[in-house]
């Protein structure tokens, strides 16, 4: 799909240029804002893998975003205060933090997926939502890490040689992850598992009738998806130097889903467009009225009723099916 590839490259190019533009115009806020866009894109790409390509409507991906965020926050706090956590002193080395976040989110995705993927349709939607809620309430009631008030960390976790507190540097770190995930997913989608996953979305009975067990494939996909969204959560905590239960809320799950859909499901770069659109809305409408989400709701309904294929299709002016 030559046209789509062109649009993808243009998107990457623009993203690459943003910090330079913001430097020239002396608007560092622009870089920070775009970092948020990139992080939300990563979260959305994780979800899009199972939702767009696999047809699994997970309404609980905030579980992974939030756990990635909390793991990062907790490790940093322990390193900050030099308290012992499970035999070691926490960490503020970002690479270690990333590794642990991905590990724990993958494990969590395996657990949640193991139960949820036994169901399908509406049950699946409700169950993924319920599990995320469970974690949300747990995070509010567990007192050690701030409860409802959340957790603040002083400085971003440390990356070798570079100063992560510099907005431009942190931005490129996040952008690097975006590119890593985009490339990895491209590989995975072109693999046998990728073809099976797409087939599960189209017709699961067909998959079984060629001798494939859909459960195992969906579970692996779900774990990969959870790991990606989880890492986004980790970056989010470092960006804001703050994490609170709201990253585990159903509203967060809804937001991630909305930006995936707005951008266009089953388009690899769709979530990026969706995140851009969402943040632009938040910044412009949000500046006008604190009830801006009313208009977001309105736009979503219009989109569902009339422009179902999403922003990418709109830009590519392709058939809407």
């Amino acid at each position, binding site marked *: 799909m030559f046209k789509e590839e062109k649009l993808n490259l243009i998107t990457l190019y623009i993203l690459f240029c943003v910090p330079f533009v913001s430097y020239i115009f002396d608007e560092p806020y622009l870089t920070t804002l775009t970092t948020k866009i990139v992080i939300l894109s990563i979260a959305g790409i994780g979800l899009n893998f199972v*939702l767009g390509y696999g047809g699994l409507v997970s309404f609980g991906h905030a579980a992974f975003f939030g756990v990635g965020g909390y793991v990062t926050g907790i490790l940093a706090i322990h390193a900050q205060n030099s308290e012992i956590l499970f035999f070691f002193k926490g960490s503020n080395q970002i690479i270690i933090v990333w590794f642990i976040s991905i590990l724990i989110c993958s494990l969590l995705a395996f657990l949640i997926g193991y139960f949820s993927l036994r169901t399908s349709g*509406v049950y699946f939607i*409700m*169950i993924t939502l*319920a599990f995320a809620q*469970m974690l949300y309430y747990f995070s509010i009631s567990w007192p050690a890490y701030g409860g409802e008030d959340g957790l603040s960390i002083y400085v971003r976790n440390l990356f070798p040689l570079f100063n992560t507190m510099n907005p431009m540097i942190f931005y490129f770190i996040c952008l690097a992850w975006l590119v890593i995930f985009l490339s990895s997913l491209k590989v995975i989608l072109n693999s046998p598992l990728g073809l099976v996953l797409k087939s599960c979305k189209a017709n699961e009975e067909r998959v079984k009738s060629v001798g494939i067990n859909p459960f195992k494939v969906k579970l692996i996909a779900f774990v990969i998806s959870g790991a990606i969204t989880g890492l986004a959560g980790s970056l989010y905590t470092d960006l804001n130097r703050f994490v609170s239960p709201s990253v585990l809320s159903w509203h967060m799950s809804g937001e991630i889903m909305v930006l995936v859909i707005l951008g266009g499901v089953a388009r690899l770069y769709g979530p990026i467009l969706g995140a851009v659109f969402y943040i632009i809305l938040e910044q412009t409408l949000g500046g006008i009225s604190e009830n801006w989400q009313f208009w977001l709701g309105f736009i979503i309904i219009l989109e*569902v009723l009339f422009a179902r294929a999403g922003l990418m299709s709109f830009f590519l002016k392709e058939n809407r099916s």
Partner: protein
Amino acid sequence: MTISLLIEQILNGLQFGVMLFLMSAGLTLVFGVMGLINLAHGSFYMIGAFAAAFFAELTGSFFIAMVASFVAALFAGALTEIVIIRKIYKRDHLDQVLATFALILLFSEGIRWLFGAYPLYLNIPNELSSSFSLPLGIMYSKYRMMIIFIGIIIAIILYFLISKTLTGIRIKAGQNDREMVSALGVDITKLYTIVFSLGAALAGLSGALIGAIQSVEVGMGEPVLILAFVVIVIGGIGSIKGAFVGALLVGITDTMGRFLLPSFFSYFFDAASATSIGSSIASMSIYILMAIVLIFKPSGLYGLGK
């Protein structure tokens, strides 16, 4: 821990369960009959509560406030069904999730714009604000007792409505075979509007009833909605009986969990830790219950296996 405290908590669990039933009945019917997953159901709960608070303030009558909550939510449900919901019955679940999620945003911000960001107050009427004595020296809130009764009465009414009236039979038939019912000449459009509005009205009523015990604020409906989802998953989508059993199970498990677990953990930890560990695990208890049910019965206890 005394017996009377235990019984009081069981009654609280019943009251919670009964209120959850009012929420879940509508949700499960809408899914069973129309195949629609509706995230905006929590918004009707909120609308009912706000309507009640508004009319209680206006008229001073709690009774009128309750009626107003039912009617307001009924009306909101009907309007929503006619304008938007109708257009998405045939869409896939993802579209329905999105559209109804958008409705939550619309309703929440709409109410916030109308009433402001601060919670409203709805007071328990004076006649019901005291407790009355039960055997074993238990004093239980009259108001909560009333909620339990209302819930049971509505459950009975629903039962008769579904199994004995013509509309009810059409609803049941619609759950099994939508096309057939329509082919038989039943006005499906009207039937769907009735089912949807009825569900919304029940949600509104439960919002109003609870609004007097907790606060009336924007976003109050969503946590309850998610609990209703857990209830339906446990009880089985499409089954009113499942919704009733599931609601009571969830209500009692949650209440007893919060009550007993901290005490349980105090045998092993100090008081402060026991409370935090206990209440944290208690907050997860119903989800663990849901996971257990799903292992043995993936379609819920009374699920129609759709």
